[in-house]
């Protein structure tokens, strides 16, 4: 039975006293997690470990309830092992691997316990796989007792790809178990991009913190930058001016437009449909250049700042942006509609790489990839932040879960982002754009969520008694969704991997941190 006292709820960007977070006995914690995620009405936004002085680890869970706009926060202390939560809460599977790798805590009974980033444990002398300081820790080096997933049998063969791929793309390693052309299983091994960002954020904020955020996943500088600024503003009890929120919103939608447009082109490229590939390659740049018009940088660097934005949009710039948006949108429409009207394209997109809805639900897929399976979730509506509190963007979904759905949801979102930007540019609020974001509340916890172009971005910060970050957790949408790509490839032709990979277009560095 749920007891109200065991639950603490908060909203997006609203800090809590750390001492108020209920620390439950582990069994109650596990039970609550199952209950909250039951029927998949909620998602697991974050699950992470924070070290305690006695070598025990405090697990924090942040679940979201979209229909109520609320996050639930709870905690439990564990020693060097505990019964795996994944067994009853599949959404926890990747989080538990992260906790095991970072703090040397073993979730007993986890179905596939392997490192996800391949760095040494942060807990002195404790490693979940019993590796000694002399053992090599590197992607590709499987800790004793683990191996790649293997299918055995006549005519079964293995294909290993990466970390260096054929295209200009970040590194990752993919292992396919195949029967002829048919893929039985795909295992994805990441960690090559690990830059140790979360560790460097501890003790902050400092002069580098924001720059880490802008390069966590460089194609999502505005998404992660905004999530971080909400943390700073929430903890400093400062509200950014409304005009700054509007400009952040415009930049966030331009980021979505650039990436979605580029992806439609890349999808066309991967099936050899060159007209759309060629048009969208150029058009992606037009959206990036629109961002550069606002702030001088194509990726929105230096635009979003704690307390507001660094650059304003004056009347003549708003006019010029309107003109560019209309012109680019006309051409993107032409390029995108060629896809849906070309039977050879549709034949390649439809029924390719389908992720069944129940699988997407169980694994907690987020964002555009989740919406392509019919999951009606979008942080811009469900956990409204910034300008989205006042101006809603309808949520775009499709029900087929295949490459077509992931492409088509992008097209739907493109249209809605354009409409949003048009409206914003016409009605920019007449406030200033920047306020001081001062010192942070001590001994607090804050959850900040934005909807980046890939999906839900969740940052959770804990502060110490001096108002410095004692812990900072970043959950990029890719963290939830890489497993979705593995599922999409089951029983597909291996030659369809590129188009499926592109249809998710997940971040390597955003995952590896």
């Amino acid at each position: 039975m749920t007891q109200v006292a065991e639950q603490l709820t908060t909203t997006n960007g609203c800090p809590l006293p750390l001492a108020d977070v209920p620390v439950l006995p582990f069994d109650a914690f596990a039970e609550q997690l199952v209950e909250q995620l039951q029927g998949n009405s909620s998602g697991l936004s974050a699950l992470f470990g924070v070290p305690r002085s006695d070598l025990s680890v405090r697990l924090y869970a942040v679940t979201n309830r979209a229909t109520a706009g609320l996050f639930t926060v709870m905690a439990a202390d564990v020693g060097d092992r505990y019964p795996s939560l994944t067994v009853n809460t599949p959404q926890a599977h990747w989080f538990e691997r992260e906790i095991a790798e970072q703090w040397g805590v073993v979730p007993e009974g986890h179905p596939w316990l392997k490192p996800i980033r391949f760095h040494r444990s942060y807990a002195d002398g404790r490693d979940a796989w019993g590796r000694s300081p002399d053992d090599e820790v590197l992607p590709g080096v499987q800790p004793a007792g683990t191996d790649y997933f293997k299918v055995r049998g006549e005519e079964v063969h293995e294909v290993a790809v990466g970390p260096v791929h054929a295209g200009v793309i970040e590194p990752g390693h993919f292992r396919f178990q195949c029967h002829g052309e048919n893929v039985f299983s795909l295992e994805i091994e990441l960690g090559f991009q690990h830059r140790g960002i979360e560790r460097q954020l501890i003790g902050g904020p400092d002069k580098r913190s924001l720059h880490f955020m802008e390069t966590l996943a460089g194609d999502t500088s505005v998404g992660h930058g905004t999530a971080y600024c909400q943390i700073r503003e929430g903890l400093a009890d400062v509200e950014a001016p409304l005009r700054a929120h509007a400009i952040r919103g415009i930049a966030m939608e331009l980021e979505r437009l650039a990436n979605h447009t580029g992806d439609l082109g890349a999808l066309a490229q991967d099936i050899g449909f060159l007209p759309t590939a060629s048009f969208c390659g150029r058009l992606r740049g037009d959206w990036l250049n629109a961002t550069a018009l606002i702030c001088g940088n194509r990726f929105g660097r230096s635009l979003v700042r704690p307390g507001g934005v660094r650059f304003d949009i004056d009347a003549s710039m708003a006019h010029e942006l309107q003109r560019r948006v209309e012109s680019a949108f006309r051409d993107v429409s032409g390029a995108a509609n060629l896809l849906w009207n070309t039977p050879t394209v549709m034949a390649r997109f439809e029924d390719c790489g389908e992720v069944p809805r129940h699988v997407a639900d169980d694994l907690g897929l987020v964002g555009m990839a989740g919406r392509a399976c019919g999951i009606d979730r979008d942080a811009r509506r469900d956990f409204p932040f910034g300008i989205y509190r006042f101006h809603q963007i309808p949520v775009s979904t499709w029900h087929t879960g295949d490459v077509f759905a992931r492409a088509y949801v992008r097209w739907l979102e493109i249209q809605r982002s354009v409409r949003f930007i048009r409206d914003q540019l016409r009605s920019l609020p007449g406030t200033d754009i920047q306020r001081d974001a001062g010192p942070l509340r001590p001994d607090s916890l804050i959850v900040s969520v934005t909807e980046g172009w890939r999906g839900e971005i969740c940052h959770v910060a804990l502060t110490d008694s001096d108002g410095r970050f004692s812990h900072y957790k970043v959950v990029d949408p890719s963290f939830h969704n890489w497993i979705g790509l593995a599922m999409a490839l089951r029983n597909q032709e291996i030659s369809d991997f590129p188009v499926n990979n592109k249809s998710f277009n997940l971040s390597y560095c955003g995952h590896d941190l």
Partner: protein
Amino acid sequence: MLKVLYERHSQGHRTMAWPDGDPPKLPDRYRGLPVIDASKCPEGCRECAEACPTDAITVNGSMKLDLGRCLFCTDCIDACPEEAIEYTQDFRQAVRTREDLVLDGEALRLADSLDEKSRKLFGHSLQLRQVSAGGCNACEADINVLGTIVFDLGRFGIHLVASPRHADGLIITGPVTDNMKLALKKTYNAIPAPKIVIAVGACAISGGPFVDNPVQNNGVDGVVPVDLYIPGCPPHPMTILDGLLRLLGRIEDGSQPLAGK
């Protein structure tokens, strides 16, 4: 088919005229090559150096700006009490040696071309393999964009190829994470000699925002030898293209300011 042709017609011809014609107009707020007017600096002022997230600016007697560390952000400009620092519209920033990236009031010594023998080999056909070794996907994206119809890298005989075995050189992004170091070395070794290496972006040159973090290597230097450094975070695609063309001897306008600037 007719729809495709109609759309092709309405999308128009998009390849830029540069380098034969004018470069495209960059936004007014574009942050190109920074200049510091040290004569404006108050005695003992260290505001910019202290604000710089990567310690790219040092003030020890004379003022030095290391473009290899610079993120081209606004932190120094916002900190400066005298408006002594500004960004110009100059996108030309590629150089041949690490030392050339350290500005101390002299004009930036832009990249010389390869020696004559290498130019004969690569001048009209340069095949590059890209390796991201911890890059955040911004540098990667702005390398990729060179393949689009706007920049049309292929018209210069430069291609990004799928295998190091097919390549004449590497174009590297990212600070070189510990977890990519071996893969980067292996890729370098797989390229037949003679070969060239191009480091793109602050990370690949110095570690960028991650400089001195554990688990990375402060850039490509020290892992493989570098022939061309292209600074930025990320560099504008024009900066990358300009660097490549300089290396091949296709542009030789020295360090003169751009017309009209």
